């Protein structure tokens, strides 16, 4: 067949023709938000004409960009961004996952316990959780532990949702509370520190860029998985019309378990990077991460009603998120404002999504 144009029953169509991708809108929003911050930097008297992203003194790092701030922006969204890749899939499938933040806390604690060194500056590790036999283990051990905990937590979420028909909101809320409790119970609230060098490299390697590389690598992988595999197609189909998916023979329950399990695994990976980057694990790690992750996905155009959205959108949403947070710091506004504006942006993104759906329905 020719890819360009076909006539069927007298009408022609363009096989390549696509609707304006929603990711374009998100990208335009990103550019617009950057422009607003740049403009504010120029017009606000106390800013003295500072720029958010640009630094025309090329002597510093050889570019016209402020690489330091750029790195901060991307780094600070990478770890939550890994969670957001999972949230994207869950939300596209028509669900919601409130547990990743707590799963991050629990996974960080447990995997760090398997990543400790025996000796710190020649003295025994003051934060040791296990005995000598569990010290200085190969780095693969804490990695497997982290993946296993994430997968387990996700699978429990998925099984509860698929087979007991508890709404995802409730099932994952239960996991959120339980996993946080387990994180605190694990070391009776004590922080766990002093990992081996290879473990520390996970989140600090590549001149500090490794969280970004891991985030982008996972984003590319799951972009491919969502777009080009049966798993991806069924995820969209279930979120779009669960009954239709069931009637079409898709094993909806089994599929949901898989979606939540993958989201859990990504939360485990996120914890691994976070604990490694900070060289320590604390029971309070990851609090509210799930909400930031959901915010990134919604800003990126993923519909809370399911069936719509993409990883590309979520990555752009994460960048918008990072730019806004850094932008507030750069404008020297209080952290309180940051949170208030973050809340407003989430609501605005949902309103926009509903408006878009309303328009699509009116056309149909």
């Amino acid at each position, binding site marked *: *067949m020719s890819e360009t144009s*076909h006539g*069927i*029953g*007298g*009408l*022609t*169509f*363009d*096989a*390549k*023709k*696509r*609707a304006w991708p929603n990711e374009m809108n998100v990208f335009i929003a990103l550019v617009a938000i950057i422009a607003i911050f740049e403009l504010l930097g120029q017009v606000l008297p106390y800013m003295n004409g500072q720029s958010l992203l640009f630094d025309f003194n090329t002597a510093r790092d050889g570019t016209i960009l402020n690489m330091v701030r750029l790195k901060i922006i991307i780094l600070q969204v990478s770890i939550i961004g890994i969670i957001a890749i999972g949230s994207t899939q869950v939300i596209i499938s028509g669900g919601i996952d409130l547990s990743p933040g707590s799963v991050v806390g629990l996974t960080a604690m447990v995997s760090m316990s398997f990543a400790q060194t025996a000796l710190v500056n020649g003295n025994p590790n003051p934060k040791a959780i296990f005995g000598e036999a569990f010290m200085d283990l190969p780095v693969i051990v804490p990695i497997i532990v982290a993946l296993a905990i994430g997968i387990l937590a996700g699978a429990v979420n998925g099984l509860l949702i698929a087979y007991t028909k508890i709404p995802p909101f409730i099932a994952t809320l239960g996991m959120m509370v339980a996993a946080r409790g387990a994180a605190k119970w694990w070391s009776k609230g004590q922080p766990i520190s002093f990992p081996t060098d290879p473990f520390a490299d996970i989140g600090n390697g590549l001149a500090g860029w490794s969280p970004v590389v891991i985030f982008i690598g996972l984003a590319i992988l799951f972009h491919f*998985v969502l777009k*080009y*595999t*049966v*798993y991806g*197609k*069924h995820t*969209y*189909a279930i*979120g*779009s*019309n669960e*009954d*239709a*998916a*069931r*009637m*079409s*023979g*898709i094993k909806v329950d089994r*599929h949901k378990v*898989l979606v939540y399990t993958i989201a859990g695994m990504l939360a485990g990976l996120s914890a691994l990077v976070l604990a490694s980057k900070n060289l320590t694990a604390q029971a309070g790690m990851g609090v509210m991460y799930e909400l930031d992750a959901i915010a990134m996905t919604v800003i990126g155009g993923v519909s809370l009603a399911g*069936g*719509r959205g993409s990883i590309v959108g979520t990555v752009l949403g994460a960048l918008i998120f990072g730019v806004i947070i850094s932008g507030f710091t750069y404008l020297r506004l209080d952290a309180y404002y940051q949170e208030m504006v973050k809340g407003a942006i989430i609501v605005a993104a949902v309103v926009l999504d509903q408006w878009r759906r309303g328009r*699509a*329905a009116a*056309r*149909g």
Partner: protein
Amino acid sequence: MSDVQTNLYSTDFSHGAAPSGEVILETRGLTKHYGGVHALQDANFILHKGEHVAIMGDNGAGKSTFVRQITGVETRTRGEVVFDGRPVHFENPMDARDAGIETVFQTLALADQLDVPDNLFLGRELVKFKLGPFSILDYKAMRERTIGALEKTGVKIPNIRGTIERMSGGQRQCVAIARTATFHSKLTIMDEPTAALGVQETAQVENIIRTLKEQGEPLILVSHNMRQVMDLCDRIVVFRRGRICANLDIRAGEISGEDVVAYITGAKTQPEYADAA
């Protein structure tokens, strides 16, 4: 019930495009109760290869319930379904599809946010590399076969890459029907396919049904549209309050619309279905 079956088998096929005498689908005593609601009671039904049979009846007569029992959407309370010569117990609609029954359900089983090929191949995607759930989709093959199916059925869709949500009711219905035509089925079932459509869209669906008839594919058509049924079908089976109350061969032209209405409303009942009165 054997007398009823004899009666059905003895249907005279001496005129018109005679379907072969071979039976493709038979139900015996098919029954479905929803708690106390006897939605379907002792349905004995026979469909021959190449035959187009209409199912008519008032709202709530049990037509959709009958369809759901045959297609594996629900589990029947009791009774037998024999399809293509062997008793079947479909666990789900996919089982029925694998066996060769394609159904256009009354509530469209389409995913709004997906495009036409995605919907046509929903649940049975073509893959070019098998990897369990992560098998790689073969988009190109699915597009090509979609175009083939649309051409075969004469369905007009301006842009197959557009999402279903942007299409009119008629186009959506045509996609659902094209889906059944894409796969070589042994039996097609349509539950009120034109109930929500305009005149032109209805004509288009009827053309598809005629194409199926020419190709000798058997069809069960649930419809309220008397003209449509008279035009397209060989036989009308009338349901009333969960029971079959008439089995009317309409090819000879001896049975009028008024007769059928009389059976639907309960003014008349065929003697062999006296217990439905």
